[in-house]
C-alpha cells in the first residue's frame, strides 16, 4: 500500500522535524519540495522515493555541532597530547605536572580554519574557541603563518611547533590537498619538525585516505567517518539495507536522483565528487550531498530545496 508507506515516511519525517531537524521540514516545506518531482505516470512513484531518502537524511543541529567541536578538541588534540606527556614521564598521574606540560604544548600551537574567512571551516573556529574555552591568541589566519623579512619568507611564530587546521567536512579531500600544496610545502621547508594536523568533524573514508596518502599533513583525524555505506547508491549502501519497503527500489531511486541531479548540476548529479551523501549541518549542507536535497543556486534551474545549501556563489555555469 503506497499510501501507507508514504504516511510512514511522513510520520518519520515529522518526528525528525519536531526533534532534531530544528524545524527544517514542516509539512508545507516537504510538500513544496515534493512539488519538484514531476512523477511521470509510467515511472515508479518519485515522491515516494524522495520521501524515502529524506526520511533517512542525517542532520546535525547547532547543539550537536557544538558538542562535536568539543569532541574534536578533546579527543583529537588534548587527550593524545596528555597521553604523550604521561608516556614520556613513566605514566605519571601528577595532574599539576601534566597540566603544565600540556599548557606548554598549547602555547606552542596555533589553530587555523580551512578555506577563506567566509567559509564554514573558518566560521566554526569561533564556536570551537567558545566551546573549548581557548584564548584568542591560539587562532591565526593561514596568511599569518608567514611573514616577510628582507625578501625572505620566514615563520611569524618560530616558537610554534604545532599547526592544527580545523574543518567541518571533508568529501573528496580536494581542499585539504590545495592547502598541502599551497601552504604546507613551504611551512614544512621552514620548519621540518613542526607537526601539522588536519582535524575535521565529518569526512568520507575516501577523503581521509586521500589526505593521508597525498598530502604533507602529519595527522589527519576526524570525529565522524562516513564510510562507503553512507554512499547512497553504493553497493553496500546503508539506506537500502533494511527489509525492502513496498514501492521502493534502489535502482529507481538512483535513476530519479540522477535525472533531477543532472538538471541541477550536470557535472555532479549525485553530489560533488559523486559522494552521494545524505547529510546536512545547522550552518550549511555540503555539496557532496544529493543536489535534490539542497540545490538553490541563484540563476540555476528552479528548484525548491528542503535543506538549503548556501553556496559559495562561484557563479552558476562558471
Amino acid at each position, binding site marked *: *500500500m*503506497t*499510501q*501507507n508507506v508514504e*504516511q510512514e515516511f*511522513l*510520520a518519520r519525517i*515529522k518526528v525528525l*522535524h*519536531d526533534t532534531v531537524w530544528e524545524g527544517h521540514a*514542516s*509539512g*508545507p516545506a516537504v510538500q513544496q519540495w515534493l512539488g519538484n518531482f514531476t512523477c511521470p505516470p509510467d515511472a515508479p512513484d518519485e515522491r515516494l522515493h524522495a520521501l524515502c531518502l529524506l526520511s533517512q537524511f542525517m542532520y546535525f543541529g547547532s547543539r550537536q555541532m557544538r558538542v562535536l567541536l568539543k569532541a574534536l578538541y578533546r579527543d583529537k588534540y588534548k587527550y593524545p597530547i596528555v597521553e604523550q606527556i604521561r608516556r614520556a614521564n613513566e605514566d605519571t598521574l601528577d595532574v599539576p605536572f601534566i597540566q603544565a606540560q600540556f599548557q606548554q604544548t598549547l602555547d606552542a600551537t596555533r589553530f587555523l580554519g580551512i578555506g577563506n574567512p567566509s567559509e564554514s571551516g573558518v566560521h566554526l573556529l569561533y564556536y570551537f574557541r567558545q566551546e573549548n574555552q581557548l584564548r584568542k591568541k591560539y587562532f591565526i589566519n593561514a596568511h599569518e603563518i608567514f611573514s616577510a623579512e628582507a625578501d625572505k619568507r620566514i615563520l611569524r611564530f618560530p616558537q610554534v611547533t604545532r599547526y592544527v587546521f580545523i574543518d567541518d567536512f571533508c568529501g573528496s579531500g580536494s581542499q585539504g590537498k590545495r592547502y598541502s600544496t599551497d601552504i604546507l610545502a613551504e611551512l614544512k621547508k621552514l620548519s621540518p619538525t613542526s607537526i601539522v594536523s588536519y582535524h575535521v568533524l565529518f569526512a568520507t573514508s575516501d577523503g581521509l585516505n586521500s589526505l593521508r596518502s597525498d598530502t604533507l599533513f602529519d595527522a589527519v583525524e576526524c570525529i565522524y567517518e562516513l564510510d562507503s555505506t553512507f554512499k547512497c547508491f553504493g553497493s553496500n549502501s546503508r539506506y537500502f539495507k533494511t527489509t525492502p519497503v513496498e514501492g521502493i527500489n534502489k535502482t529507481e531511486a538512483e535513476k530519479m536522483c540522477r535525472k533531477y541531479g543532472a538538471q541541477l548540476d550536470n557535472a555532479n548529479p549525485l553530489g560533488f565528487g559523486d559522494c552521494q551523501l545524505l547529510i546536512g549541518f545547522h550552518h550549511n549542507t555540503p555539496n557532496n550531498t544529493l543536489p535534490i536535497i539542497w540545490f538553490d543556486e541563484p540563476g540555476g534551474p528552479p528548484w525548491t530545496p528542503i535543506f538549503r545549501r548556501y553556496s559559495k556563489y562561484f557563479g552558476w555555469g562558471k
Partner: protein
Amino acid sequence: MIMLNPHTNPFNITKAVDFSDQEIQDYWIDIPESGGFLQLMKPTSPMPMFILGGKGSGKTHLMRYFSYPLQKIRHGNDVPEKLKDDRYVGVYLRCGGLNSGRFKEKSQSEEAWEGVFAYYMDLWLSQLVVGTVIDAYRGCAELELNQEKVCKSILDLFNTWDEELPTSLEKLLEELSSLQKHVDVAVNNCAISGELKVKISATRGRLVFGIPQILSENLPAIRECVFLYLIDEFENLSESQQKYVNTLIREKEMPCSFKVGGRMYGIKTHRTYSADEENKEGSEFETIRLDALLRASKRYHLFAKRLIVRRLSEHGYVTGDVKAQEVMVKSISDWFATIPQEPFAKGETSFVIEKYAEGERPYFQSLRRNIEKGRELGLAPGVSSPEDVEAILVSLACTDYPLLEKVNIFLFYKEWSDRNNLREAAETIARDCQQFLHSKVARKTRYSRALEHFKVDLVAQLLRECDKPQRYLGIDTFIDMSVGLPRNLLILLKSIFAWAVYKGETPFTDPHTPISAKAQQAGVAEAADWFFGDARMLGASGRLVEDSIKRLGTMFRTVRFADKPSECSCTSFSCDLSRVTDEARRIVDVAQKWSLLIAVSDRRDRGSERIDDQFQLNPMLAPRWDLAVYRRGVLSLTPDECNAVFDEAKQSDFDRALKARESRMNAPSFGTKGVDDSHRDLFVALEND
C-alpha cells in the same frame, strides 16, 4: 487571560497524575447523567467501593476530584463548615508512590514484610489524615482548643511511644513522618545489613480507624463526615499488600470508608488477613467499571465533547462563559473535515472516477481475472467464453457510481458462491441496480439491504483498491474509537492537533478551515500505533497477547477485504470459550483486562442457540488493520479457530484456519471442496505467469 499559542497542543497532557490540583479542578467534566459522578461515587456511603477501569478511563482524575485538596479548591474559605456540607473528607493515596516493591525478600520472612508494610501504610495514611485536618482547620479556634487532647488520644492508639510527647497536630505530624522515615531507612538498608530493624509500635489498622474517630469526636464541624480513603493505583501492590488493604476494607470502622482505584487486571486477590476470608462483592464492597459505564452511557458523546471543549477553553481556543462553551460543544464536529454524505456516495467515491478516468477500474480487473480463472477450472457456471466474461462486466458496470458497482460485484460474488448461473445473475443484478438507482420510493430490497449493511466495507475496499488511506474522520468517529477511555480520545486529538500544526494548519482558530482529512488520518494512524505500543504488557504474556491480537486483526482484515465478506464491519468475534484451551482462555482474559479486547454482551450462536462469549477488538486498533470503527457483524469462531488465534501452541494452525476462511469468501472457489488448497497453488502459478 490565556493567550493563544498556536504551538501549544491543548491535548498534550493525557494523564491526570501529571495535573496539579488546580488543573484537576479546571479540567473536570461531570457525566451528564442525573446526579453525575457524585451519585456514582457515593462519597458519603460507608460501603467500600472498587473503581476499576482500563488505562486512561479517568480513575485518577475522578478519585483526585473527591480528595481534600480539590474540596478545598471548590470551597475557598471556611473549609471545615463546607466539609460539613460535603459530609466527607477525601484522603487520597497513590500506591505508585509507596514504592511497594521494597517490601519483600532480602532474606526476611513474608510475615515480617507483611507486618512492616501494614505499619508503613498505617503511618502514611495517618499522616495524610492529620495533614488534611491541620490544613482544613488552619487558624480555626476549634482545633486550637482541642488539639492537645486530640494528640493525647492519638498517642494512646500506639502500643508504645518512645518519642517526645507532641502537644500540637503539627508536632504529631512531624513525629509520624519521623517514624515513617525510620521504617524507610530500615527497609532500604535491609539488603545490606541483613536485618529488618523496625519496631512496630501500633497494632494493624488501629491508626487508620482510630485517628478519624478521635478527630470526629473532638471536632464538631466534621463530626458527621466520612473519612474517605481514596487508594489509587491498587495494581501496584503485591498480592499480600492488597490483602492488607482488603483487610482494612473488611474490618472497616466508622467514620471511615474506602474507594480503591485500579486497572481491571490489577486486582490480585480479594482475600484478607481476617482468617483468610475473602471479601465478596455486594457484601463487603461494590464495584464500578468506569470505562464500561462510560461506554454504555448514551450521553458519552456529550461528555466527551465537553471534555474537548474544556481543554480548548483552558488553552484560550474558546472564549466566553459556559454558554459559549456549550455552543462549541454543539458545533465541535464542524472543526473536523469530513466527507459529505451524498446519495450513492458519489462524492465519497469520486476518487475512483478521478483516478481511473481511463482504463479499467481495479475491482473490474480483479473480477475479470477471477471469472477467467473460474472458467478455466470449470467453477464459473454459465461462463463458457470470453464473450460471457465481457457481458458480465458490462452488466455490472454503473460508471457514475463506483459504490453501486461494488454492490453489484458483491451480489455477483454471492450468486457465484451459491453456484448460480453467472450470466443470468449479472443481468438480474444489473436490473436491480437500475431499479434501485431510479426508484423514487425507498423499499427494502435485496439490493438496498446489501448496500445498507456493507456500504462502509465496500467503500473501504474501494479505498484500498485505489491505493487510498482508509478514512477515520470526524469527532464522532474519534469518540467511538475511544470506547469509554477518555485518554484514548485525548491521545487521538493530541496526534491530530500535532499533525495539523505540522501541515501548516491552525486548528480550532478559524471555523471556516476545519482540520484537514489528511491531518486526521495521520493523527489517527499515529495514535493507533501508540495505543498498541502503550497497551503492550511486559514479559512473556505481553508477547503472546500481542501476537494473538495481530492474528485476530489479520483475520478481521481478511474478512473485510474478501470478495464476499461473511460479516459486515467485522471487528468482533464470538466463541464458546468453555471449549477452548486454558491458554487461549487465559490470553483472551488478559487481552480483555488490558483493554485490547472489549467484552460485549453474550451472543446466541446462530446454529446451536448456545450462548457464546463475545469480544470486540478495541477500535483504537482498527486503523492498524484498516478495520471499521463501528461494531456490526460478529465473526463466529470455532474453538479450533479461537485456539489458533489465542493459543501459541496452536498458532501453526492459524494459517490453515485463515486460508480456509479466505477460501470460503473468495472467488473462484468459494470453499469448493478439493479446490481450496490444491488449486490455490495453481492460482498462484497462474498469477505469476
